[in-house]
């Protein structure tokens, strides 16, 4: 774990000038836990003040809380880390489970390829797991149906590349990542309207075991 953190810190410092729009990346699992708890609390607060999106916010908060709990367990395991190989395996397993708890779909705002805070939190969990194994990932960018198909292919690529670049900045080597765009060709929801469109503007992370 110590080695890992140092490597991450080194990466962070190396790429710091380039980070610009990317929110600060927390380098330790403990630091991440704080972020998780804060974002969970933030989401809970949101659900309290909003009337329209109660259901969604509550669901998101529940998911965040569950993920935070999983992260906490992972962190607890990390603090009790041992030098033995089996413990390292268990750690990898835990980080992967934490990442899985966040899901592998990151959503985007309309006509945007910027990562949302929720996407960053989830991505960080995936990055933490990927830093302990040698899996590859395939990032599949998607858009909603508005606009032309070819332009949407390009937008989908912008989204998957944004995720790719964030992963590279945070220590995942480029050759482990494949970025593909499906544009609007692979919708999750077929209907029109924002409810459907929001589900389709996404990047899906597919883990490829090596």
């Amino acid at each position, binding site marked *: 774990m110590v080695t890992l953190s140092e490597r991450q810190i080194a990466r962070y410092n190396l790429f710091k000038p380039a980070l610009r729009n990317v929110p600060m990346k927390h380098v330790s699992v403990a630091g991440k836990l704080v972020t998780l708890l804060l974002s969970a609390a933030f989401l809970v607060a949101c659900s309290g003040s909003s009337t329209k999106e109660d259901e969604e916010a509550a669901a998101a908060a529940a998911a965040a809380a569950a993920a935070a709990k999983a992260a906490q367990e992972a962190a607890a395991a990390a603090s009790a880390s041992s030098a033995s190989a089996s413990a390292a395996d268990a750690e990898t397993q835990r980080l992967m489970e934490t990442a899985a708890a966040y899901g592998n779909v990151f959503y985007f705002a309309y006509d945007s390829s910027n990562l949302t805070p929720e996407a960053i939190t989830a991505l960080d969990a995936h990055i933490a797991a990927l830093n302990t194994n040698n899996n590859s990932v395939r990032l599949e960018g998607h858009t909603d149906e508005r606009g032309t*198909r070819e332009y949407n*292919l390009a937008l989908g690529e912008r989204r998957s590349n944004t995720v790719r670049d964030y992963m590279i900045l945070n220590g995942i080597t480029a050759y482990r990542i494949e970025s593909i765009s499906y544009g609007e060709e*692979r919708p999750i929801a077929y209907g029109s309207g924002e409810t459907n469109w929001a589900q389709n503007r996404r990047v899906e992370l597919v883990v490829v075991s090596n």
Partner: protein
Amino acid sequence: MKTLAVALLNMCLLLAVMNARADLTIEITKGMDNPTAIAVVPFAWQGGGAAPEDVAQVIESDMLRSGQFAPVARTDMLGLPSTQAEVFYRDWRALDTEYLLIGKASPQPNKGMRLDYELFDVLRQTRVFSGFESGPASDARMLAHRVADKIYGHLTGVRGAFATRLLYVSVVRGGAGNKDYYRLTMSDSDGARPIVLLESREPLLAPAWAPDALQIAYVSFETGRPAIFRQDLATGKREQLTNFKGLNSAPAWSPDGKTMAMVLSKDGNPDIYLMDLATRQLTNITRNYAIETEPAWMPDGKALLFTSDRGGKPQIYRYELATGATKRITFEGTYNARARVAQDGRNVVLVHQKEGSFNIALLDLVTNRLQILTATQLDESPSIAPNGSMVLYATKSGDRGILAAVSVDGGAKFRLPSREGDVREPAWSPYLSAK
């Protein structure tokens, strides 16, 4: 290896000829204000038994779809002449018929067919035009479209584009947990005689015609990544043209057939490239951090139009091949994309966004006037007929993709709903013959 096996499993290649009647049906939604009344009398069949094809019906539907003609109903016809001697002008004047088309269909040796036709001006009481078309009997519908082309050309002064074909992509949804089926289909210009050229579990898109109408190009994800393929229509032989990292899309054949414009993002972001099809040499013609996509050739082959968001929002730009000069040509609205140029080099059809609605618009390159042609919500993929008269495009009806068409003056409209699945990305073929 595992990936390859999966790709092969996922790819269900079907080069079979499916002769189902028609996946697409036609619904006329709007005709022109003062259509010309024309009576297309059922052609007399000179062979034994029943006529293999109602060719007059094919011709009549073509005239109706153009929006410029109002066919006289068969049930109103007082007689069914097939020779000049049988024509009684007063019968047709009584029906306010302006033009009368009669003809005969005759079987020919070696499974051939010949259509003889005569066109009459009812008011002037004269025969204005006559001719014949011949070919294989199995191509009777195409012969009928050729007759319609001649009649349309004679009456409007514009060459008809009925004897042409369409390419389109249809998608049959897989349902819960199953992947969709993507099909690339070729049909006659009226949607009849569909032939499935390719079927895949992975997306197919961007079908494009070679200028000789003998080959097509498209993008297929069958390898797990987008790649440009070309396919010979007569033999079904396919060839993968690109296999670059990132986007490989938007193939567009140059008017001389030697070069293919395409979009590749191998160097980081989508740019327009030209591929010399003989040498496979690539030339990058846009180098920009923006999205550059949707190349379309001017008919003289000297310039390309493309979509770029270098100014923040997608707009159409024009690139001159000789000088490399690039200039923006759309200024109205915040979203103008996917231009296609008519053969006259003047009319450009594109996707224009206004108040959240995506519509097909016509841009006149001489007057710079932009005219919105459609009134639905999510209109895209305009493709213009080789004679410049009609624009075929994709739109949505409910949550289904359908094809629709509008005349370039906005006066005539029809829809081609599909019997099954979503239909999208129509590509109207060039003329199939030189004359």
